[in-house]
């Protein structure tokens, strides 16, 4: 059982370290696309972290949002960022 | 005489409203509705005169007029008419009436008249409020309102010079306001009240607080001294000369400088109590300062060629008579100071009206242009002459009465050096007024006037002519009939008796 705990710890430590490293790399790489993909990957690992924290509800929300929709949102934004168009001005 | 409480509490409000409401309505009026505006102005001025008369009668018979409203916790807004307030209110009500007439004539066809008369009315409202303030908070409220309503009048013409004058005016008055505020709040933390009471509210404080009290006194005097143009704080006054003549008249004779002087009287009498202030040892420095201002103003006036500037420095000098009278801590000197509040107002407003007439009718602004002007405008110069002589202190004009009481009062308290001040000041007054009179009456005109305008009925428009004539007459009357009941002198005595001698 001690072995099990050790493995479990190893899993948590690896996951935690990976999360921190991903966050760091995601925020400090100069390549925006890499940032975005790293962020998606970060979301995936976050979902695993929620799982480890016995929060399946949160894991599911994170899976749907962090890994799915946010990724699409970011990709879409990135695409438009690199293909600029003038937005319409309105109001005053 | 029995006055119902409801009446006695609404009368002060009515007095304030009689100029406030017309003022607010005038703001909303179109520029073209001259008649309505004039009618409103006169209506307000007349109704104020009427209310003042009513109040004079009441106060003379010991009636109390008071309105209270809780403004801050434990600090009400108090409007109260006592003898001292009425001295000031009467003066301002009368002069407002006359100045209104004068201003209607003076500003004919100039732009922004609605704005001008609106602020003009607010200015008078503030003056009335200052006069009736029943505590220091109320006083400050109206005192600041006075600042705000006179600023637009100072910069009314909108020229760069006017705006610079306005900036200077604001700089002085705002800083003064800060000093006043600080002093008032500090005082309140010591006493728990700011109400004006005969004998003051601070005399029973610990000796340990006396040092603080002295600082508070200095702060309050600093705040009030700005408007009263006490020596280091007078800088704004000559600059403010750029304002239209009725404004100058109002600033110098009635509203602003008098509010400052009146405030000094109030603080000395009803906050500190004159005897206590004397024991604090703050009165002698005030007397010295006032004396210095008197001499300094006169000397500066001597070297001005611009007529209004000369009159302005004369104001600096003359207003300090009031402070001096109070600072000497004697009933007789006090009468002199208080009565000068009225007398100086009457005389100085006459002078400014006349200066305005010269500028408006002939385009004359400088003394060196005044040669022979009396031949062209005898009535105006007659009024000017009466007022100048009064300023110098020639009997029987009102100014003599003031100086007489001041001199007597000084001797009574053993401050003989004041006589020297008075004498010196009078001599300087003579030095800067008599040459003007000489030029006007005895020298030949040097060709055409700078910008002459002709009027069918008289030497100038009647609206411009009548007010100075009346004020000159009043100044003369105040001197001649000084002992008649309700004369300024008698009323000043009443004030002194009630607030000074009665325990």
């Amino acid at each position, binding site marked *: 059982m001690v072995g099990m705990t050790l493995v*479990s*710890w190893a899993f*948590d*430590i690896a996951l*935690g370290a990976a*999360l*921190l490293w991903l*966050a*760091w790399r*995601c*925020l*400090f790489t100069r390549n*925006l696309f890499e*940032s*975005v993909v790293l*962020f998606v990957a*970060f979301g995936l690992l*976050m979902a695993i*972290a*929620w799982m*480890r*924290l*016995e*929060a399946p*509800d*949160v894991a599911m*929300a*994170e899976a749907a*949002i*962090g890994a799915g*929709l*946010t990724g699409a*949102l*970011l990709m879409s*934004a*990135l695409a*438009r*960022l690199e293909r*600029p*168009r*003038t*937005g319409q001005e309105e109001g005053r | 005489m029995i006055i119902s409480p409801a009446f006695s509490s609404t009368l002060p409000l009515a007095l304030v409203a009689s100029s406030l409401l017309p003022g607010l309505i005038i703001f909303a009026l179109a520029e073209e509705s001259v008649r309505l505006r004039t009618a409103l102005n006169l209506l307000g001025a007349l109704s104020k005169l009427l209310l003042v008369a009513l109040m004079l009668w009441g106060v003379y018979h010991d009636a109390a007029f008071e309105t209270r409203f809780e403004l801050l916790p434990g600090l009400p807004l108090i409007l109260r008419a006592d003898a001292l307030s009425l001295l000031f209110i009467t003066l301002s009500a009368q002069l407002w009436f006359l100045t209104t007439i004068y201003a209607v004539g003076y500003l004919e066809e100039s732009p922004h008249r609605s704005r001008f008369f609106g602020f003009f009315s607010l200015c008078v409202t503030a003056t009335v409020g200052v006069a009736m303030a029943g505590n220091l908070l109320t006083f400050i409220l109206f005192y600041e309102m006075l600042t705000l309503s006179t600023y637009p009048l100072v910069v009314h013409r909108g020229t760069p010079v006017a705006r610079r004058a306005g900036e200077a005016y604001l700089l002085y008055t705002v800083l003064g306001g800060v000093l006043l505020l600080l002093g008032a709040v500090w005082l309140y933390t010591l006493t728990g009240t700011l109400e004006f009471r005969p004998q003051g509210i601070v005399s029973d404080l610990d000796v340990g607080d006396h040092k603080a009290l002295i600082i508070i006194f200095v702060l309050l005097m600093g705040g009030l001294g700005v408007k009263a143009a006490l020596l280091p704080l007078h800088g704004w006054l000559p600059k403010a000369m750029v304002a239209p003549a009725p404004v100058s008249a109002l600033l110098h004779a009635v509203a602003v400088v008098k509010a400052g002087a009146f405030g000094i009287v109030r603080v000395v009498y009803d906050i500190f109590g004159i005897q206590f202030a004397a024991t604090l040892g703050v009165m002698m420095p005030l007397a010295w300062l006032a004396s210095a201002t008197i001499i300094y103003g006169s000397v500066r006036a001597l070297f001005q060629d611009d007529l209004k500037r000369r009159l302005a420095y004369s104001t600096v000098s003359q207003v300090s008579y009031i402070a001096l009278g109070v600072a000497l801590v004697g009933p007789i000197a006090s009468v002199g100071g208080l009565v000068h509040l009225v007398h100086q107002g009457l005389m100085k407003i006459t002078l400014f009206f006349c200066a305005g007439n010269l500028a408006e009718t002939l385009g004359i602004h400088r003394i060196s242009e005044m040669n022979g002007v009396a031949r062209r405008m005898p009535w105006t110069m007659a009024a000017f002459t009466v007022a100048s002589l009064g300023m110098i202190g020639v009997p029987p004009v009102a100014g003599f009465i003031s100086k007489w009481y001041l001199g007597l009062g000084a001797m009574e308290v053993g401050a003989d050096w004041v006589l020297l001040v008075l004498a010196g000041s009078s001599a300087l007054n003579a030095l800067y007024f008599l040459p003007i009179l000489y030029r006007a009456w005895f020298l030949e005109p040097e060709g055409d006037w700078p910008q002459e305008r002709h009027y069918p009925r008289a030497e100038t428009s009647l609206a411009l002519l009548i007010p100075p004539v009346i004020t000159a007459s009043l100044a003369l009357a105040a001197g001649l009939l000084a002992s008649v009941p309700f004369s300024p002198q008698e009323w000043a005595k009443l004030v002194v008796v009630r607030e000074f001698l009665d325990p």
Partner: protein
Amino acid sequence: MTPAQLYALVGIGLFFVGLYALGVRQHLLPRILALNIMGSGVFVVLVALARRSDGVDPVPHAMVITGIVVAVSATALALRLMLRVAHATGSATLTDTGDE
């Protein structure tokens, strides 16, 4: 030290990594991502500490779900805004302060 505490520390770490990036990076996209990562850090703290001796407290889970919805809404808006800024100024940074 428990795993919960480990994750709480990771959450703190994420919060500060995000904060540092928010302060240092110029481009708006990493800054928006930084806020999201900071948010994740906070959520992790909230959920990690919910693992108590006697079971899991569901209230923070509900809070975090609410927080995630709020975060995604804000992110969507921020991305929109970033695009408009980029189109209007020609660069997706805030170096051009527009304070003139």
